[in-house]
């Protein structure tokens, strides 16, 4: 469990707002201020794109068809509210670094919660709709909506969520995409330690539906450095498996394995065209998150 003060980070919020969501808050919270790169159902024409499965029949430009005998769909500036859903990994592995089983301060979950609330606060301030799905010990879904009440609800869920069990991120992402239907941004915040081979495919399948996934990889600095000394019994948080060894003797090899994993994650995301940011506790995540938000723009 976390207090609201544990997960609100005004400084990070301010830096993210300054970088990606500049400008004063809109007086009409149902309209976004930023011109969205998303193409949708607005009034202003933007471009033609070739028709493909998923496009509405009504959006086909028949005049162009008459001239070229090919189906093109009119893309217009989408002037609707942005819809953003955060999929948070709340599996047991996110408790790593917690002060105790009941106090999640210092854990990866707290770090992830800070990131989610900071981005969400920026979006809400600009009149966008934010939603939340917890993927872990319990299933919680908060549909996207705007306003401070929505943000308060999001805070409530994040701070009170049960952090336990395993996580099937691929299932959670698929469920979220199903509920969103189309045209949304999905922030997936996780340590990606679960062996979830189907996630990559699910994420690639969202793109034609206008759902843009963005990966935020949360790591605890101890997971990278392995600072323990002396003979240690390592116990898997998500299972009963354990291993006794002297970390001093394998630290170098361990570091190499972790770095290899991070590199693999980054390369895989880039290959799929999915923005990716790695945030490590103990380090300022603002820069990585700013780059993530700016990359590819909003859809």
């Amino acid at each position, binding site marked *: 469990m976390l207090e609201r003060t544990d997960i609100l980070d005004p400084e990070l919020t301010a830096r993210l707002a300054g970088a990606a969501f500049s400008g004063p808050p809109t007086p009409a919270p149902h309209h976004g201020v930023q011109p969205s790169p998303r193409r949708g159902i607005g009034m202003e024409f933007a471009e033609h794109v070739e028709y493909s499965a998923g496009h509405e029949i009504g959006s086909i430009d028949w005049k162009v068809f008459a001239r070229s005998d090919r189906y093109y769909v009119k893309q217009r500036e989408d002037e609707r509210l942005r819809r953003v859903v955060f999929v948070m990994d709340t599996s047991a592995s996110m408790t790593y670094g917690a002060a105790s089983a009941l106090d999640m301060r210092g854990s990866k979950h707290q770090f992830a919660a800070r990131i989610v609330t900071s981005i969400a606060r920026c979006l809400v301030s600009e009149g966008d709709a934010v939603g939340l799905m917890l993927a872990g010990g319990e299933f919680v879904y908060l549909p996207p909506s705007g306003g401070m009440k929505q943000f308060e609800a999001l805070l409530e869920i994040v701070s009170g969520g049960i952090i336990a069990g395993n996580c099937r991120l691929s299932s959670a992402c698929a469920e979220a995409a199903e509920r969103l239907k189309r045209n949304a941004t999905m922030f997936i915040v996780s340590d990606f330690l679960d062996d979830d081979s189907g996630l990559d495919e699910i994420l690639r399948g969202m793109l034609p539906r206008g759902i843009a996934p963005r990966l935020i990889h949360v790591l605890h600095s101890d997971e990278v450095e392995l600072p323990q000394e002396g003979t*240690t019994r390592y116990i898997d948080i998500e299972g009963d498996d354990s*291993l006794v060894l002297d970390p001093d003797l394998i630290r170098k090899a361990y570091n190499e394995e972790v770095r290899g994993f991070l590199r693999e994650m980054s390369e895989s995301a880039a290959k799929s065209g999915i923005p990716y940011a790695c945030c490590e506790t103990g380090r300022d995540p603002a820069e990585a998150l700013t780059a993530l938000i700016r990359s590819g723009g909003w859809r």
Partner: protein
Amino acid sequence: MEALALLRPWFLAALVAGAIPVIIHLLDRKRARPVHIATLRFLKLAHARKRGGLRLRNILLLLSRITLLSCLAILFAGPGCRQDADITKSPASWIFVLDTSPSMSAVRGGGWAKSGRSALAAAKDAVSAIAAESAPQSRFMLLKTSEQSGGSRPDFTGNAAEFTQSLKKLGIEFGRHGMTSAIERAVRLAEGVPDARIVVLSDLQKSAWDHGALAGMEGARVLIVDTGFEKNENAWIDSVNETASEIAVGVKSAGADKSIKHAVKVRLDDGRVMTTYAVDGLARIPLKRPAKPYTGVVSVSPGGDVPLDDETTFTGGEARKISVVFVNGDSRTPEMRDELFFVRRAFSPDGLLAGEIVFREARPADLGAMALDGIDLLVLANVSSLPPRGSERILKSVRGGMTVLMTAGDNWNSLMRLSAPASTASPEHLISPETSIAPLLSAPLRDMANAGAAEARAVDIAALTGPMEMFRQPESGDLKLARIKSYWLLNASSKTGLDVSMRLDNGAPLLVERREGKGRLMLFTTTLDADGADFCLQPAFIPWLGRLMHHASGLTRFEGVRVVSGRALELPFDEPVWVRQPDGSRLSVAPHVKKFTPVQPGLYTIERGDNEKLAAFVTVTDSAESDTTRIGTDGLDSLFGKSGYRLIRADAGGRIPGIGGRQDMSGVFAGALIAAVLLEAALIRPFGRRKKAGHELK
């Protein structure tokens, strides 16, 4: 055969500590700190990559820790090994012949070093080591090499504890020493003793061993332990001779670098200190003699291995003139053949001895009525007859302190018994005892040898002793050039207390003296003139004559006398006296003790009961002890035969390789311990600790 020898074997119980690393390893696994981690995936992958190296490292670490603890336990136990384990099992009878001569005081360390242990200390350590490790029923006998320790019984016999205790009291003994006689005693003691082992411990000083072949050594097997220095170096004060104008100090060296210059320092009891360097073994120190008899200390530096001979005390006479009366028995002319021609030349106002001696001449006929009081020396040169009761008067004066020096001459030929065969070895007197001069002879005459010019004899320089010792140095006067054509042989064995200070190269005595009361009778067995010898024509004649006069006049008070330790001395006192020894102790001596043997080196004073000082003399260690030249294996072979002995050398730790003694092995185990520590340091985690301990399960 070697066996482990531990000083504190009960510490071996601590060897079980070697199991501690194994226990710690097992406990460590059970008590491993639990840490929850998000995934074991990377740990397993890393562990799989390092598994082989880790296993080897763990084995090495375990071994190093077991070695470390085991070595620590063994080091506490005092590890060592015995060279000869048999001596601990079967009892034996050990007969140790221990060289206690002064040369054994040489300080171990060699060269000019003054630190470390003496050769005797090393020998005692070696013997103690055997005693400590021998079987409980072993018996020990100790034979010292001092001639005072002679006899059929050992100087000590007992068990190991008593033997070790007696060794502690053992020290250097002055006086005469004989290695061969001690070894013969040991062999006789070993006869009939089962399992007897004879061990000789010595510095192998040549002069102590070189006393002829050993007797009764058939079948005997002796172990000789060399505790001396392989490279010996020593310098010592060989002689101190005082003349009217200087002190001549003879310095000798053995084995030392000949280029080393020896400084000689003389400290007189009046506070004067004089220093000079010895040149060619002789240091001449000009001296203005004090008005009273005095003592001084001479030291040589550097003194080499044996510290005892680096310093010696000497006594000197007061600056007074000697009263000498020469009685010339030769009345012939011309004067050139006169007995006293050369003597007169020496004592004339422009002579070399002018001023030192009050010189008078007299005829034999004058001796009947001449007053003899105050005369230090009466020289009877070629005198064959004395006035009636002349000899009685002279003898009375001699007993009161005067010295008579008789020199031979052709007048004695008339006294020869023609009936006695000249060549016989019969002890028959050639000069009748009834002859007036006979009572004044030091020893009866046995024969007259007349070799002729072609077969003339020379003086044996090496045999010069007592007052003539200084002429061993050619710089003092080269007596080697003198040739003696005719001389008298003595029946020396019929008289006791004879001191021979000069001999011919065939061993015949040339200058002898015998104490008579407080004075002494001296005899020069050839002529003072050129008839029988060419002494008077030699350049050394004047120094020799001066030395002879000085000695003859000073002996009555003992000043200037240097006695070799262990040699008997006659004390000419007709009243009970006390002899104060160098260590301050006093010995009571009865009148006319014929044999007083001083042992301690240093200054002896003879006192009356009321502490009045009557005389003084100095006892010095035998120069032979200072000559540390060693007997080689050739010399030992000739003594024992090649199979009769085994020679080994004591090591620096006082252990005798091959027959017991404990060799300290702490170094070996300390080395293993250090190696284990280094291995441990190399295997354990790198230096520096991380500050964070990770997230423990709470």
